[in-house]
């Protein structure tokens, strides 16, 4: 378990983080979500014992991270924003070095390497010099060094940064695999990435913890208006605008219905709602004998929540 209490960090007189408190249970995959400069990297560096906090307490796997960082480091695998690679070494030599640094014997490293190369799909480039690898492979080598010693806790800072779409999908799959054996903490400012990978989110803004919970919990905690776009078509061929508006306005939770616009052979309506009422909207449309062509959030729910939370942080600072 990771337990953080009133953690804060100042660079000179400038507060970069905190005070923040949170807990991460064993086996969880938690995402740190925040804009650039929100304090994500600072928080992760402190957890990885790369940086000392100005105040607060950290307990990782039952060990105090402030008084006994040496012991905590044995339990943690850390992939920083820029993978800590030696460009002149081959992948195998580098992973061997990283493993030995983490206290493994040469025999242990030798036994572990095939698994790590398989998990990270680095087998084909294992003899290559790191400096000659593509960005995607370097990122994988970064992950490999973080898991070589089979740490209980894995901290990944922006693991998909700079990757192309294919590499992002591959990295996401890799993180899914890692979730089976590690407690994972990931930071990102990309909403879709973090929502697809994590069980729970910690939203950071201007160094403060703005929200915590699953995507649905975060969305449910918000009472503000969501947007749903529904595209419908009347089978009769008559102008159904008045009927459709009446049907949509009658749905529980719909606060207002905007003027429609034509799209895909039907009429699209933007609905402002106070709750997630996609099911009710679709039911009402079908019961009114209208064809339902499309039903979607105009923006992702998480994105709305995120913008509201971060916007709140901006306003309070």
């Amino acid at each position, binding site marked *: 378990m990771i337990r953080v209490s009133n953690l804060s960090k100042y*660079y000179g007189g400038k507060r970069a983080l905190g005070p923040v408190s949170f807990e991460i249970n064993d086996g969880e995959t938690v995402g740190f979500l925040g804009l650039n400069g929100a304090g994500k990297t600072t928080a992760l560096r402190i957890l990885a014992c790369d940086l000392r906090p100005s105040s607060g307490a950290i307990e990782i796997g039952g060990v105090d991270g402030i008084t006994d960082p040496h012991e905590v480091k044995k339990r943690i695998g850390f992939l920083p924003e820029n993978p800590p690679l*030696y460009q002149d070494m081959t992948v195998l030599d580098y992973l061997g*070095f990283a493993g030995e640094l*983490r206290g493994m014997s040469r025999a242990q490293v030798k036994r572990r390497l095939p698994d790590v190369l398989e998990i990270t799909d680095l087998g084909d480039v294992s003899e290559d010099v790191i400096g000659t690898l593509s960005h995607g492979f370097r990122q994988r080598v970064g992950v490999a060094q973080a898991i070589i010693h089979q740490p209980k806790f894995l901290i990944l800072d922006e693991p998909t940064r700079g990757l192309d779409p294919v590499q992002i999908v591959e990295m996401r799959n890799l993180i899914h695999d890692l979730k089976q054996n590690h407690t994972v903490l990931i930071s990102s400012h990309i909403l879709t990435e973090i929502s697809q990978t994590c069980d729970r989110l910690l939203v950071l803004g201007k160094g403060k913890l703005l929200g915590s919970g699953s995507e649905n919990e975060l969305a449910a905690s918000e009472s503000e208006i969501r947007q749903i776009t529904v595209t419908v078509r009347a089978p009769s061929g008559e102008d159904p605008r008045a009927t459709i508006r009446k049907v949509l306005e009658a749905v529980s939770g719909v606060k207002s219905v905007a003027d429609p616009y034509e799209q895909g052979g039907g009429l699209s309506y933007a609905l402002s709602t106070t709750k997630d009422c996609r099911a009710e909207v679709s039911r009402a449309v079908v019961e009114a004998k209208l064809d339902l062509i499309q039903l979607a959030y105009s923006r992702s729910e998480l994105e709305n929540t995120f913008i509201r939370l971060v916007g709140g942080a901006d306003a309070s600072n």
Partner: protein
Amino acid sequence: MRAISIIYRRELGAYLRSPFAWVIAALCLLVDGILFQGYVMSGEQLSAIVLERFFYFSSGVSIGAGILLSFRLISEERQTHSLVLLNTSPVRDTEIVLGKFFAALTFLLVLLLLSFYMPLLIKVNGKITFMQVAVGYLGLWLIGAAALAIGLFASSLARNQLVAGVAALVMVILMVFLFPFAKKLDSPVREVLQEMDLWWIHFQTGFMRGVLNLKDVIYYVAVTYFFLLLAVKTLEAKRWQ
């Protein structure tokens, strides 16, 4: 000890793989050779004087090599972000500094030994003892070690390699010229500063002439220890910044 050995092996491997390290080695040997041919072996002299001249020039080469081999050691890792691997591994800052220092010291030793043919040439044509040569080389190694430690400290201070290199050079120059500078001062400050000088007192009057003084050995070990300690403390302090 284990972590020192792991870091030592990596760093030594990095030196052996790096063209930069071999360019430094080649440059040092070239300068040493030119000075040897142009100044050391010129004219008819007592072979002991010739050997003194050899160590006189070689001490400058050893100091220069020490700075060049060390100024990148930490600043480069900070610049390329690889220092994070060391910082987040269960390794103490002392082990990081010592691993790097001993690797550089080994490479410096190899570099110095490659110049061994020059005193051998003197021995072929004159009368010098093996002990004179051995003491001189010990002095070259110790003064080089002190320069390495100063360079390592400068490297721990700066993120930029160029800044680290210039800072190391300035520190070494200041320490070498403490002696002539101190001449202008009154006692007892003069004596204290002169004893702290990196070259004139401890190398020129001792090792260079084949005279082994324990105080000179202790001086270089102390300077090396002091700057390595500063490098360790700087690494520790950077975590708090």
